[in-house]
């Protein structure tokens, strides 16, 4: 039977190359993302990522809105981590107007950011194992735990994901009564879940054979590809913006940065598991130390910063999330640029996938941890 209907091209030896468009509607491209694969049998010989299916030109929108109005839009960048997105934007805008943030607000910000890290990492690990082919079980355990933290966010800010909680100079509202106790209880129980999760997955022979030595990025490559976040640390680079920039009050907490040695998918998975444990350490300290006091400096809602440029960045769960703002003396930002971690991390996708099997391409994509809201913006 002739192979009519398949897009086949030949490689230099005359063998047939199968071109597969994986996505934009595919179970494991994590949104509307497309990979144009060229396959020799099952081996990936070329890969082209195609973006833009979720593009809404959020940067252009922001140019017509006052600074504060941009805040709810940042929630929708990486829609799993509203809190850290808020913080990154608030941090950059606070550099423009140079205001003091009250002590209590700083602590609340740290607590929220670390809770977000827990949410993001446990979801990512769940999806990663789902991409490996486990029928959703680890994912649903992760979702079960995430739900509790989302409930916390709902009590705090009124929304589960689109929090819009941080403001320039502080946070929107104070912690409700009993919130800290509830948070402490949930954080205290989290390690038990992590233990269960590790028993389920860490030593699993199939997980090990599938993910070790797949999608390896060496230290030099990772730096050169501008990789950030857990992915960079899995490659063995000790670079955590919480430690380097010490933004907020991160210098007050005692925590460590987990470092992988191989830079493969298994390391990325384990680094995230370990990061969750470190986040719990930070959370416990922050909950114990949080002072009473005001939560907001007295900054006007609408302000006109002097013409200047600023770049603020934080360690979001996915990597370096930066906001590059150009102010022109009006109430709206002249230029509002997001440096999205998952978009930049995708640069290395092609490099990591070539030579592996189709199934590996899927888990490598999963281990990068992308959210299309942030990639396409």
């Amino acid at each position, binding site marked *: 039977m002739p192979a009519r209907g398949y897009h086949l091209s030949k490689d230099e030896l005359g063998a047939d190359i199968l071109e597969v468009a994986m996505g934009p509607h595919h179970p494991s491209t994590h949104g509307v993302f497309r990979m144009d694969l060229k396959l020799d049998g099952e081996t990936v010989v070329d890969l082209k990522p195609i973006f833009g299916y979720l593009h809404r030109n959020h940067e252009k929108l922001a140019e017509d809105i006052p600074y*504060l109005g*941009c805040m*709810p839009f940042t929630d929708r960048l990486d829609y799993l981590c509203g809190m850290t997105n808020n913080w990154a934007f608030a941090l950059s805008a606070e550099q423009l107007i140079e205001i003091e943030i009250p002590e209590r607000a700083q602590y609340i910000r740290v607590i929220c950011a670390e809770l977000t890290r827990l949410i993001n990492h446990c979801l990512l690990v769940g999806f990663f194992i789902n991409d490996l082919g486990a029928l959703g079980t680890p994912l649903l355990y992760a979702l079960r735990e995430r739900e509790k933290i989302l409930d916390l966010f*709902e009590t705090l*800010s*009124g929304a589960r994901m689109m929090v819009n909680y941080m403001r320039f100079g502080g946070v*929107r509202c104070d912690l409700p009564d009993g919130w800290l106790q509830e948070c402490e209880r949930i954080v205290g129980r989290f390690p038990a879940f992590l233990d269960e999760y590790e028993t*389920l997955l860490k030593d699993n022979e*199939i997980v090990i054979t599938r993910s070790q030595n797949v999608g390896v990025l060496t230290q030099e490559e990772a730096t050169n590809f501008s990789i950030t976040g857990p992915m960079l640390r899995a490659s063995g680079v000790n670079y955590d913006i919480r430690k380097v920039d010490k933004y907020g009050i991160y210098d007050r907490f005692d925590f460590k940065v987990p470092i992988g040695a191989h830079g493969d998918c298994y390391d990325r998975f384990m680094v995230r598991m370990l990061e969750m444990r470190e986040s719990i350490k930070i959370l416990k300290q922050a909950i114990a130390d949080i002072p009473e006091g005001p939560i907001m400096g007295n900054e006007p*809602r609408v302000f006109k910063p002097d013409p200047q440029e600023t770049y603020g960045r934080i360690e979001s769960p996915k990597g370096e999330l930066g906001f590059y703002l150009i102010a022109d003396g009006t109430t709206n930002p002249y230029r509002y640029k997001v440096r999205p971690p998952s978009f930049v991390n995708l640069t290395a996708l092609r490099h990591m996938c070539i030579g592996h099997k189709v199934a590996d391409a899927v888990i490598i994509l999963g281990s990068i941890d992308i959210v299309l809201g942030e990639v396409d913006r």
Partner: protein
Amino acid sequence: MSLIAKGILQGMAVTAKNFIQSYYKKERLPTVEYPEEKSTVNQFTRNIPFLVYDGEDEIEGMRCTACKLCEKACPPQCIYIIKDTDENDKPIKRPKVFDIDSSVCMSCQLCVEVCPFESIRMDSEFELSNENRFEGLLINRDELLKSNEYYHEIHPIEAQETDDRIAAKIAEAETKKKAREEKARLAAEAKQAAAAMKAAEEAAAETETSATEQAQQSEAKAEAPEDNPETKNT
């Protein structure tokens, strides 16, 4: 890997534990069966804005004055306000049209934060599905208007705070008003006294100037709070 893979068996033990515990541990089965059983809506939940009115009558008790601050603050521009006019085409402080496009609204609460009259607040109603994609999702003024009692029901703490704030404002306005009246009275008395004094002491003509000055000063003070917008509104 030997004949029996230890990691796999460990994992299977975990799933077996979850399977069994899901029958008797609430923590292991967090599912809520939605239409029959609704998960308790948190009192801090926000979804779509609504307008608060006081008392019985929707229109009379409306707190909104159509100042359009929320319209300006709304990032996706889903609020649409037209000021009401009376029969003489004179604008009155009340919206004739107050539409919120719930398909566009992103529940950011910025409108609530800018509202100086504590009028627009967030609802926690989440069953907003509608058959009509366009007109059905456009919520108009009459649908948006909800009583203060309803507000107390869904957000008790916040509503109490709002009420306290309003009460404080009213009280402040009252005291200011009283102070003003008091001062006016005092001034009038002082004037009278001065006049009397003037009359009495025309012949003597001694301490006249100082009394007039005093009266003028207190009059100026009494007039000052009149410009305060908050006192006007309450």
